[in-house]
């Protein structure tokens, strides 16, 4: 079978030291799913983006990418436009900043439908609604603006937009990072269906080995901007040749049905009493109560859109809520400045949570500047040690957020949140964009810090294995209500929804 896409000797250089991608080659035939895995910052996104000519002007690209005989890198703007979204669709890694904030998601999907096809408006709308259904979103969200949607919902909007024209090649950059396992299963089904029905080829970038083994035919492993290994998934997973691939596979966390190890809880740090969050008339969180003690981690899992981020927003005082939330005995709304420094927050969307005009060192230093008297060299040293702790090279310190990879940005957010040795850490999907090796080290960091500082932690994640690894207790949120909470949620799920959740979890099968 001849290749649909073949990338030859691709190198991308941003003029900042070493090239981001060097001499990458791979190919893809119709109906094939090629997974690209690799370390965070290894050049996966850059590779994908180069194919549609979407890299910033600061990037210099060399090599060839042949799609149906044409070199994508030397297409005229008009021809490239024809390819974009039509022959090749692309799902972006960070869905929360990928959508235009001033248009409704409906109109953005409709635009995707109409841009390559002369479809009447009404038909386009019908198609858009169909697409929304397909990705598991209710039709009434058609009129919602991006900021009114949860991270997972936005990701699904982006997927809907991308598959609108049934492209022959789908580039999906971490398409399921923000999705809980049940929804993830639906999306994977959708992709599989596209492949089976239309012979769509999928270039799947992911850190989730479960997804790889579930969907991919072949896998490309990248590290440090280079392809280190490539081959059929089964082969590579069963007999990895490269040490990096082996570490990668070894780092995969497995979900099992153990009881969680109950650690001794100190006095409650965070306490929620009948907390509800309403947007307009819509109740996103209703009547949630729980507490987290010193040194404890509560894992919060639940369907995409079930209100996890809303709850995190309420706890940090960003979202208006009713009920009572106390941090260390004090009502959230009336926290003093000093107390605020005791609460660390990792946002679900790393990009928008970083000031685009501040270097990452500045962003990490911000809490220190606000709450400590560290300045000058001491501050530098502290920032460097934080960067190091989250596995970021000190060379990145003077970069701006848009010059980092998704995973790198996410780690900046983590570094910032732990800079002040918090008493309470609220982490909203903090590892969703991290490859398993980095993720393992970050989780290790969190655990060791927690042992040391005994902070209380609310850990929101869709990755059940991660939750299991980290949490003392798990709460399951479903449509804004905590349906189940305790240490034995995974061992002995009581609720139907929890059971479904556990059943959908993917495992890496060699």
């Amino acid at each position, binding site marked *: 079978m001849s290749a649909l896409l073949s990338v030859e000797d691709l190198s991308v250089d941003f003029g900042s030291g070493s090239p981001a991608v060097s001499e990458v080659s791979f190919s893809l035939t119709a109906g094939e799913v090629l997974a690209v895995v690799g370390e965070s910052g290894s050049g996966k996104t850059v590779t994908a983006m180069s194919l549609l000519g979407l890299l910033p002007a600061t990037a210099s690209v060399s090599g060839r990418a042949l799609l149906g005989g044409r070199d994508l890198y030397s297409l005229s703007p008009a021809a490239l436009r024809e390819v974009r979204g039509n022959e090749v669709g692309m799902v972006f890694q960070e869905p929360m900043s990928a959508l235009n904030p001033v248009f409704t998601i409906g109109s953005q999907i409709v635009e995707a439908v109409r841009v390559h096809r002369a479809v009447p408006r009404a038909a386009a709308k019908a198609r858009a609604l169909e697409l929304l259904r397909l990705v598991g979103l209710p039709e009434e969200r058609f009129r919602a603006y991006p900021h009114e949607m949860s991270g997972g919902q936005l990701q699904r909007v982006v997927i809907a937009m991308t598959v609108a024209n049934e492209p022959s090649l789908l580039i999906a950059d971490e398409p399921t990072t923000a999705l809980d396992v049940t929804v993830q299963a639906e999306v994977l089904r959708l992709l599989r269906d596209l492949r089976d029905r239309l012979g769509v080829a999928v270039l799947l970038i992911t850190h989730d080995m479960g997804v790889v083994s579930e969907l991919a035919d072949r896998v490309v492993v990248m590290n440090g901007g280079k392809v280190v290994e490539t081959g059929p998934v089964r082969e590579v997973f069963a007999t990895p040749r490269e040490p990096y691939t082996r570490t990668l596979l070894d780092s995969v966390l497995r979900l099992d049905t153990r009881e969680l190890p109950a650690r001794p809880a100190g006095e409650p740090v965070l306490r929620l009493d009948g907390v509800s969050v309403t947007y307009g008339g819509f109740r996103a969180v209703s009547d949630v109560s729980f507490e987290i003690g010193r040194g404890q981690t509560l894992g919060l899992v639940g369907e995409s859109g079930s209100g996890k981020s809303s709850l995190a927003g309420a706890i940090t005082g*960003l979202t208006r809520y009713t009920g009572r939330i106390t941090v260390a005995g004090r009502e959230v709304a009336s926290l003093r400045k000093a107390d605020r420094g005791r609460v660390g927050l990792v946002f679900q969307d790393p990009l928008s949570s970083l000031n685009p005009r501040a270097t990452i*060192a500045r*962003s990490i230093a911000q809490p220190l500047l606000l709450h400590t008297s560290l300045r000058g060299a001491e501050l530098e040293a502290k920032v460097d040690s934080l960067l190091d702790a989250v596995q970021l090279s000190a060379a990145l310190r003077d970069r701006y957020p848009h010059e980092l990879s998704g995973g790198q940005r996410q780690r900046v957010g983590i570094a910032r949140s732990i800079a002040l040795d918090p008493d309470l850490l609220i982490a909203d999907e903090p590892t969703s964009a991290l490859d398993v090796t980095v993720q393992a080290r970050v989780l290790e960091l969190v655990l060791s810090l927690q042992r040391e500082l005994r902070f209380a932690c609310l850990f929101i994640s869709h990755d059940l294995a991660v939750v299991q690894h980290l949490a003392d207790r798990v709460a399951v949120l479903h449509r804004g209500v905590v349906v189940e909470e305790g240490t034995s949620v995974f061992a002995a799920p009581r609720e139907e929804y929890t059971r479904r959740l556990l059943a959908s979890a993917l495992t890496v099968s060699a």
Partner: protein
Amino acid sequence: MSTPVARSVPAAISAVLARDRWALAGTVTVVVIALAAIFADVLTALEGHDPYTYDSSALDVNTGLPAGPFGGVSGDHWFGVEPLTGRDLFAIVVHGARTSFLIGLAATLVSIGLGVLVGAAAGYLGGWVDRVVTWSADVFLGFPYLVFMIALGAVVPAEFPRVLLLVVVIGFFGWPSTARVVRAQVLTLKERNFVKAARVLGASPWQVFRTELLPNLWGPVLVMATLSVPGKIGLEAALSFLGVGVLPPTPSWGRSISAAIDWVGVDPMYLIFPGVALFAVTWGFNALGDGLRDALDPRWGGNR
């Protein structure tokens, strides 16, 4: 190296000067004129005239226009002379630079500074602060400024330092439009997560403003600021006409320009010298401003 902060303005200036030749040209223009203003006395001494002495011998007896072609430009009078008075135009322009430059710049600083602060406060804090700011902006915009100036001209004693008065008055009346533009920007900025992140961290409004909002406001602020300079210089002229401005015979560009408009037909040079000076300064600030904008935007180059 010190703590890396959001690219600082001085750092950005040196960066842009090193890289952007247009911005460099703009800066050189501004600096040259600033120097001319500072050393106005030296320059006029070199030329040998002051801006006050009437000299009917430099005028054409039949018309009152400058004697000689091009508005009387000569080795003696570098820019020629003023019609009807024979005062030396070069001396007037360089001495006028003092008044106009100082007032234009200082009043701009006052009005933009005030506008940014007040506008950001209104947008970020919302609630009654916003309401009070919006209302007072409306009051200022709706208020007959001219009447106020006239009243001021009648009330303020002649001894009061005029330049200070002008800077305060022009600056103070200029804030509302900047404030409203900044407020609009802040209304969307404050919904961005990085601003929220700072708030969650316990950053005070001032800290949020300084580290999160301001760096993201440079674009519109620079536009408003660089374009406001000529406006302020023109306003100074209008106010001088109303008797609130600098007292005659102190020269100012604005005054020369408005006087010269009448003469364009017969003595265009009278307009051209101060006019070009004003244009040069404005252009200089704008070229520098555009360069700065680029330098302060880390995404400069952007997506293509």
